[in-house]
């Protein structure tokens, strides 16, 4: 069998709808949406992306530009840099109110979900660990003073804003952000990628499910393709092609994500933050 390409998948989807009356533009959209449906079902190994960006001294919030295209400044509400703990004129009697600012967004193309982050000074040769997520913004806001200054220890993502803690970086640190991102189909009929090459049927089924719903208005037919994609209705991920992807995904990533941790004893681990909570299976915080 020849290596499946985007054109191979297109032809199969097209044959099930109509060679002539299914507009190619809609076919392309069905393939785009089919890929999105598959990627909505999980964070798969081909979606591992990473990016770098640089912090701004005393700036705590960084709006994320996920489009991959240039974007202008974005308004945020933060505590002004004049309130940094390093400012000798700031006292307990100083009013501390947040203010509106325009800040440049950071580029995180196709962001779906965060995985991990490392941080370092511009001149450092090694990365330092930076915790990502794990606690809520509400909890972090209580843990840090509003003008705590220092190297970033914690990154949280709330809506489309990335926030660093302590909230006043004392240097323009470089952040290495590892994340899960939405991916796109190849542009050319003649190209392929991991999803199309290894799981072509998944993209065919998901595209057909979308097209039967949107183009043919055939819910019963769409249900047939959806079952082939994800098992019985309401069981997405248990059967069908999605289950195959999930099994392979587990094989690819288990060496990264599973560690056994003693609940007590000398090897008990704890985090810098949430010091009363142990780390159990699946933690990404240990290294």
């Amino acid at each position, binding site marked *: 069998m020849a290596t499946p390409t*985007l*054109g191979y998948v297109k*032809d199969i989807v097209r044959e099930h709808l109509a*060679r002539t009356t299914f507009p*190619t*533009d809609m076919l392309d959209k069905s393939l785009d949406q089919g890929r999105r449906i598959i990627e909505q079902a999980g964070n798969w190994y081909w979606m591992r992306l990473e990016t770098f960006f640089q912090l701004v001294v005393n700036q705590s919030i960084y709006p994320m530009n996920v489009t991959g295209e240039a974007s202008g400044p974005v308004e945020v509400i933060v505590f002004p840099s004049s309130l940094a703990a390093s400012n000798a004129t700031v006292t307990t009697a100083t009013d501390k109110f947040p203010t509106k600012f325009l800040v440049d967004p950071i580029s995180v193309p196709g962001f779906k979900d965060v995985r991990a982050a490392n941080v370092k000074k511009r001149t450092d040769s090694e990365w330092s660990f930076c915790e990502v997520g794990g606690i809520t913004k509400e909890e972090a806001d209580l843990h840090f003073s509003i003008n705590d200054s220092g190297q970033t220890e914690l990154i949280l993502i709330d809506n489309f804003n990335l926030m660093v803690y302590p909230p006043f970086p004392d240097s323009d640190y470089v952040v290495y952000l590892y994340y899960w991102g939405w991916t796109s189909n190849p*542009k050319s*009929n*003649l190209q392929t990628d991991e999803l199309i090459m290894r799981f072509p049927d998944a993209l065919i089924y998901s595209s057909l499910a979308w097209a039967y719903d949107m183009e043919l208005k055939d819910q019963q037919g769409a249900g047939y393709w959806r079952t082939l994609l994800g098992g019985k209705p309401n069981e997405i991920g248990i059967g069908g092609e999605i289950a195959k992807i999930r099994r392979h995904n587990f094989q690819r990533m288990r060496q990264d994500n599973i560690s056994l941790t003693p609940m007590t004893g000398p090897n008990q681990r704890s985090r810098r933050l949430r010091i009363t909570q142990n780390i159990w299976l699946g933690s990404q915080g240990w290294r």
Partner: protein
Amino acid sequence: MAHFLIDKRTMEVFPYEVDFSPVLSDSDTVLDPVKTTVKIVDSAGKDQTGSILQKTTFSGTVITLVLKDGIDGEDYTIYITGQGDVSYLTNQPVRVVELRVRDTIVGNL
């Protein structure tokens, strides 16, 4: 969406006619062979005019494209911007032809 759809085997060479009379102004009698343009792009949007279009001829409001070659599995989009001899400043209609090159898929479109 394309106005016309054709399929082709890689080894085929054939003429394909597009009549602009329905979309030109009543005042136009012929397509202007100099001002009328043809552009062919592949599925990635790369210009392939030179590799697919062998030649063009004009007769009245009809343009004839002689198509050649192509890569099996590729979809090409042909954009023809027609300009009549009189109304070319105010009327430049585009006809879009989708060309699918398939050696193994047979049967009528």
